[in-house]
């Protein structure tokens, strides 16, 4: 019989071997012949980021590996500091305390955060707004103020809650223990864990659970065989991130740990810098250990983030079904209320109370007759406080401006160009998130003591701004990368084909379109700057005090709690205003307030 070729031949059967991806690829105007404004801007931003990310860490490492640092004596390479630090008999204690404190804080915060997230995302638990409000609180109440409030509540003798316990016949609680440190740090970290948990639970398609139920599994079996395995990577990832954050914090260990004789890495670094002459090698060596631990923790966390995504990403548009709590509703309500009271109400009330007492008094009926607004008046009459407030505002504004400008250009490079090495740049911009801020502080301190600059930066606002910019860079990057990703390549191309040069395109198209991201980044940087203590605690002198440091100093001097509290209340008010402003901006623009995409404060 005759043989005929397939009659119904369609054009689509032709293999399309061409590269469809290339057609939409970012434009590429490499002006090799001339150095354009574009290349200058890109190179400058890249240099700034590399400088900020690399210099502090490298300087600190250098100091830890040299026989002497900052001295006229000849210096050579050595491992002595690193080894001696580890051989010190007290080093074992230091490691044990750091580990216990960080691991327990992380475990507690993660458990608490994920339980609350489950309640909010997957149940009909009442009073969800309370949990939400509490989750925003760490943005409003700086860690240093929260820690102070807790010591006022729970110090063994004078603590307001302990007095209450005594009255009603309960045993008192000594906050100056590792347990105390863990409890306070956990209240600081739980809200962040809650947000990460929320992302995990809302990213989990309920149809997977429904499929299990349709196969005949009972609710508990569904939870243990489907839900838990699916969210497990998310939980582990959050746990490791909390661990890294706990081991890097300064406020709780310094204000609660040190008075009770419990030292951790960060407080050890801090006290070592206060000795004279400072032992740079040992400081660097301890810094090296923290850096290794923090980096390792972060890498593990990232590994599980990726794993978690691979498991739960199902595309958007599904609505998670909620579990009715039934007779457990009351329990859910209580959990929400207790969480809100413990993380927000108690510390805030304590702060407010202290700010209106004349000389510190515990809350009591008697004390009511001694209330006064004098402390607030005194703030405005104390020149040094006004100076540090002015410094804070100035440093915050300048840092926010710089960090936002730099990350805009860097985000442009990493998102909108195909420049070689953009991956490295992206990585560098994220480095500071893995480096505990006290180490950034150490590195900056060492570096600016070493380099022969015509002007002395130590003790200036400039050096604080450098630290602030470094610390806030990764967060700012998150906003700007998200913002850049929302802008279609055609928006830029349409300007080019309309006759717009690169500079005009940036100015007339990119900046206006990026405005929400720019504002969010700047506001976040301002808030971060007001709260930040650990990154700058080694960099201030009397000449460049800022509010967070002043609060710490007044507190450490121990004789003006009411004044500090009043100052804290004002700071908190300011941060509330900033947060409300930010909320307004982010609401209309679909940006989240926290610079997280869905799985925590890191992008990848």
């Amino acid at each position, binding site marked *: 019989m005759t043989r005929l070729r397939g*009659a*119904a031949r369609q*054009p689509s059967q032709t293999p399309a071997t061409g590269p469809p991806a290339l057609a939409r690829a970012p434009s590429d105007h490499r002006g090799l012949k001339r150095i354009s404004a574009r290349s200058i801007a890109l190179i400058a931003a890249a240099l700034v980021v590399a400088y900020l990310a690399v210099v502090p860490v490298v300087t600190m490492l250098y100091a830890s590996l040299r026989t002497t640092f900052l001295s006229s004596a000849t210096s050579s390479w050595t491992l002595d500091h690193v080894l001696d630090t580890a051989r010190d008999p007290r080093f074992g204690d230091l490691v044990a305390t750091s580990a216990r404190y960080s691991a327990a804080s992380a475990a507690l915060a993660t458990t608490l955060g994920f339980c609350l997230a489950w309640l909010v995302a997957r149940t009909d638990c009442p009073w969800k707004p309370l949990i939400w409000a509490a989750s925003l609180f760490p943005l409003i109440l700086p860690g240093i103020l929260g820690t102070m409030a807790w010591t006022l509540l729970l110090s063994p003798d004078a603590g307001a809650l302990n007095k209450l316990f005594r009255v009603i016949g309960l045993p008192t609680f000594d906050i100056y223990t590792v347990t105390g440190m863990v409890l306070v740090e956990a209240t600081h970290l739980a809200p962040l864990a809650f947000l990460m948990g929320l992302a995990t639970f809302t990213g989990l398609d309920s149809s997977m659970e429904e499929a299990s139920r349709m196969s005949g599994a009972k609710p508990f079996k569904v939870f243990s065989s489907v839900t838990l395995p699916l969210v497990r990577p998310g939980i582990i990832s959050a746990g490791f991130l909390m661990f890294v954050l706990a081991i890097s914090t300064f406020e709780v260990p310094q204000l609660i740990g040190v008075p009770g004789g419990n030292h951790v890495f960060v407080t050890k670094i801090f006290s070592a810098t206060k000795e004279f002459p400072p032992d740079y090698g040992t400081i660097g060596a301890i810094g090296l250990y923290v850096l290794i631990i923090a980096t390792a923790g972060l890498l593990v966390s990232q590994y599980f983030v990726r794993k978690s995504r691979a498991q739960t990403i199902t595309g958007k548009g599904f609505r998670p079904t909620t579990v009715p709590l039934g007779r457990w509703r009351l329990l859910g309500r209580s959990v929400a209320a207790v969480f809100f009271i413990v993380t927000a109400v108690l510390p805030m009330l304590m702060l407010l109370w202290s700010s209106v007492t004349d000389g510190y008094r515990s809350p009591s009926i008697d004390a009511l007759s001694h209330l006064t607004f004098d402390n607030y008046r005194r703030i405005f009459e104390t020149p040094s406080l006004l100076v540090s407030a002015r410094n804070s505002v100035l440093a915050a504004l300048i840092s926010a401006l710089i960090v936002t400008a730099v990350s805009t250009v860097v985000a442009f490079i990493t998102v909108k160009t195909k420049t070689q090495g953009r991956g490295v740049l992206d990585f560098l911009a994220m480095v500071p998130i893995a480096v505990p801020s006290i180490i950034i502080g150490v590195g900056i301190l060492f570096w600016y003591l070493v380099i022969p600059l015509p002007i002395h930066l130590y003790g200036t606002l400039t050096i604080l701004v450098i630290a602030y910019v470094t610390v806030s860079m990764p967060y700012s990057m998150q906003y700007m990368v998200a913002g850049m990703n929302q802008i279609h390549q055609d928006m830029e191309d349409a300007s080019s084909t309309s*006759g717009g040069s690169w500079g005009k395109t940036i100015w007339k198209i990119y900046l*206006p379109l990026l405005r929400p991201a720019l504002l969010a980044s700047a506001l976040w940087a301002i808030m971060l700057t007001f709260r930040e203590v650990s990154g700058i605690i080694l960099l201030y002198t009397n000449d460049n005090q800022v509010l967070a440091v002043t609060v710490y100093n007044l507190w450490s001097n121990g004789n003006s709690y009411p004044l500090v509290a009043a100052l804290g209340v004002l700071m908190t008010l300011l941060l509330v205003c900033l947060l409300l402003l930010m909320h307004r901006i982010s609401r209309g623009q679909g940006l989240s307030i926290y610079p997280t995409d869905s799985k925590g404060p890191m992008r990848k």
Partner: protein
Amino acid sequence: MISLSALSKRFPTKGNSIEREFAVDEISLDVPEGQFVTLLGPSGCGKTTTLRMIAGLERPTGGRISIDDETVYSQSSGHFVPAHARPIGMVFQSYAIWPHMTVLGNVAYPLMIRRGTKKAHAKEKAMEVLELVGLSALADRPAPDLSGGQQQRVALARALVREPRVLLLDEPLSNLDAGLRDQMGVQLRSVQRRLGITTVFVTHDQGEALAMSDLIVVMRDGKIVERGTPRDIYSSPKDAFTAGFMGVCNIVQGIVETIDRAAATVGSPLGPLSAPCGVELRTGDAVDVYLHPESLKLRATRPDSTAWRGVVKAVVYRGEHTDYAVQTGQQTMKVRLYRGSHLFEIEDEVWVTPLDGGALLVRSELVETNVSAALTA
């Protein structure tokens, strides 16, 4: 006019920095002044890359581009004029209407960013162009409030406002609903005619290409397969790929038996077929005979001895026409009958005849001997 000569774009293969693939492979093309030329092809054929290279958004890796006799890219001299310095206007598939400006702001932008433009003059000029596309009433609207069709017209106005020498259109109709697409296509073409602007249009839709173009350039795998007027490309494609892409789906293989001036008689398994020679042929050549579905006729009774017997295997009623799949011998033919023709049912016996001049010949891609063998078997 636009002139491309040996224009190429290579890019590194994934995971291999030395080896490079062609996205566009040495294409040469002249777009005459005032003509509407369409680059047509499946996705990945290099048509959009070609357009973006003309725009200056993509830097070629070889060849030369000139617009109005001014060279804007030349590999040999290293000359490259960036997009913003070329005399072009471009409409994007996404329209790329800037959401932070009003309609007027979008359209006036190309004028406003020019150094020394007076604001009033720019506005006046922008309003004129908005008038041209019928949108002057919406000038003060924020751009995001517009419908898809309106956005498309704003994009066109913005592309035209600075009186470019060349208009580049990157699938500007593909995001519109079917009805609106035809309407917009007609308007686009009429504006282009009125202004007499040289235009390059990129699409993967053969219907758009046929309806709008002066000249269609069919591309595949980074190369130009064929170029011609819409009529030529549809009714007498010279290339099997073009025929397939234009939706000719009935192919009968055969051997040229006799040639009489412009027409040839082809021996095929279905019997002798007569068709005009589109290409130069000799007796004995293996050929593919292409038959458009609408150039076949179905009858219930045998009209003459050349008709092929077939059985209706599928019927798809589409309103203005009805598509049939008819089994003839080993082959299933697609036949399209327009409203008013007799309706057949599944399993009906039918007689298939090609309409006069409905068949066209393309030299077979198969080796001749195979075809002969198949025929004699």
